[in-house]
């Protein structure tokens, strides 16, 4: 049923019936997840800790450890994605913003690290543009990862995806701990992507950020996507929302609490 909206779509990413099974623990981690991301679209994935969001991102790049068995059908711009052709897509077409900052190589200065990820001419210039658009100081390019603050490191990770100039970014929790004021700045590159006809899978705990940046929101719970709704459905009392879990999420937002109490 979730599938309906994607019929006829040839561009972008389509995931059909993704299931992840842990071979040794004999346990299903992700069950029958289907999702699509069109060009110029930002799809947010929200859900509690352990609901399977990171697994979803890693399975798109076929990067799961061998003890996890992956079953799904995946299409990128109409072509089947599998273990054999995914290496050509990684980084160049689909880039990942990892959830943890230890994804930075501790031996490499961040500037050098980012430059080696880039292709084509004018690398230095392009890097500086992306770097300053994220509110980072040019001097920090000479820093090693251990010299960065948590927030700085997080933005370096965002930069590492942007410098590769991909068509789809899988952003796994790019904004933790960012306050409401600076949020717009950090979200700007994603909106920019959208304007350039590219897409973003925006994984987050921050329901507020999701509503702010996304076109559609997928709600994940216990390894399943229980609902995918356009942001416009998140309004009023949440009467357009299908699932009680989603309604609860929506009503728990601070601004809605007030509404509920008042009624």
């Amino acid at each position, binding site marked *: 049923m979730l599938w309906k909206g994607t019929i006829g779509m040839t561009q972008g990413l389509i995931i059909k019936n993704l299931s992840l099974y842990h071979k040794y623990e004999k346990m299903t981690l992700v069950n029958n997840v289907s999702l699509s991301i069109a060009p110029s679209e930002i799809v947010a994935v929200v859900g509690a800790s352990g609901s399977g969001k990171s697994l979803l991102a890693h399975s798109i*790049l076929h*990067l799961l450890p061998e003890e996890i068995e992956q079953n799904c059908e995946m299409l990128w711009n109409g072509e089947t994605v599998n273990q054999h052709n995914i*290496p*050509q*897509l*990684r*980084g*160049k077409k689909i*880039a*990942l913003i*990892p959830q*943890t900052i*230890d*994804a*930075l*190589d*501790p*031996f*490499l*200065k961040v500037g050098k690290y980012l430059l*080696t*990820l880039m292709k084509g001419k004018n690398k230095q210039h392009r890097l500086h543009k992306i770097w300053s658009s994220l509110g980072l100081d040019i001097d920090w390019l000479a820093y*090693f990862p*251990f*010299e960065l603050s948590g927030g700085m490191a997080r933005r370096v990770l965002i930069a*590492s995806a942007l410098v*590769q100039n991909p068509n789809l970014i899988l952003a796994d929790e790019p904004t933790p701990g960012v306050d409401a004021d600076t949020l717009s700045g950090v979200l700007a590159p994603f909106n920019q992507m959208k304007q350039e006809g590219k897409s973003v899978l925006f994984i987050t705990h921050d329901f507020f950020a999701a509503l702010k940046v996304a076109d559609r929101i997928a709600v994940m719970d216990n390894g399943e996507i229980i609902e995918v709704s356009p942001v416009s459905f998140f309004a009023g009392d949440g009467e357009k929302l299908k699932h009680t879990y989603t309604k609860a999420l929506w009503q728990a937002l601070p601004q809605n609490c007030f509404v509920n109490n008042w009624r």
Partner: protein
Amino acid sequence: MQILSFLLKKLTYLVILLFVVALITFLLVSLSPIDPIRAYIGADMLQVSPEQKEQIEIYWGLKESKPEQFISWITSLLKADFGTSLIYRAPVSEVIADKFFASLLLMGIAWILSLVGGIVLGSIAGMRQNGLLDRIIQLYSYVLVSTPGFWFGLLLLMIFAVGLGIFPIGLASPIGMLEGNVSFLDRLYHVILPALTLSILGTANIALHTREKLIEILKSPFILQAKAQGLKGFSLYKRHAFRHTILPAISLHFASFGELFGGAILAEQVFSYPGLGQAVVDAGLGGDVPLLLGIVIISAGFVFVGNFLADVLYKIIDPRFRKGLMKL
């Protein structure tokens, strides 16, 4: 400032180490049944009267108490006076310097070959974990790690020197040639087989260590991220795994100067290679106490230098250490 205090700490450590080593060797030697006068005079001992013997004992300070002897020995050590070797009839420092050069050539070549070989083999095995190449390299390494050095040396000697006649059977230079006429190539030619023995055995250890380290590194989040960026195979290894992998390998290799030295002693025996290892055996068998003590002190210093370099290297390659060391 931090460098200074680091060096100071290491220096203090060295002084304590050398003192303890000197004390222990002194104790062992004084407990041993070696009679230094008998060892010095040798077969002519019969012609020495008890009075003359006593005179020598007084002259050499053998009548003093053990602590007094120890202190006077330590004092001359501090003046870089190691005494006179009984079997070589030359100052101990000269004998050691001479023998040390031959050993250094042997150990240096073996050290570098085993490091490079070990890293290459270990890296291939680690990148191909559980593949055919990995299994072959592991088998090779485990067999060699448990192979006795002297036996392996004899084997090489039998095959390459006795059987095929490619390499000389022993010694460090052609027989009958004057010291001054021995060219560097001659020396190299003679050192190859013992060096090969040492390095092939050393390779196995480094290979296993490198493999294990590489497999551990390949599980790091930054390697997963590199894969997400499309890197794989050799470029992945070169950019993100190489430095992380060789650092502990080199460090381990420096720290195992002791084993290198021990291996060299055996190899020098098998190949009759006149280095420090052979000198130590001669000194022990011939009751040459000054030379024995001198070599023990020098080799303790040698092993310390290895450990020191291992430590420093970590701090130079790893930016976390480097910055920590430089700052303030």
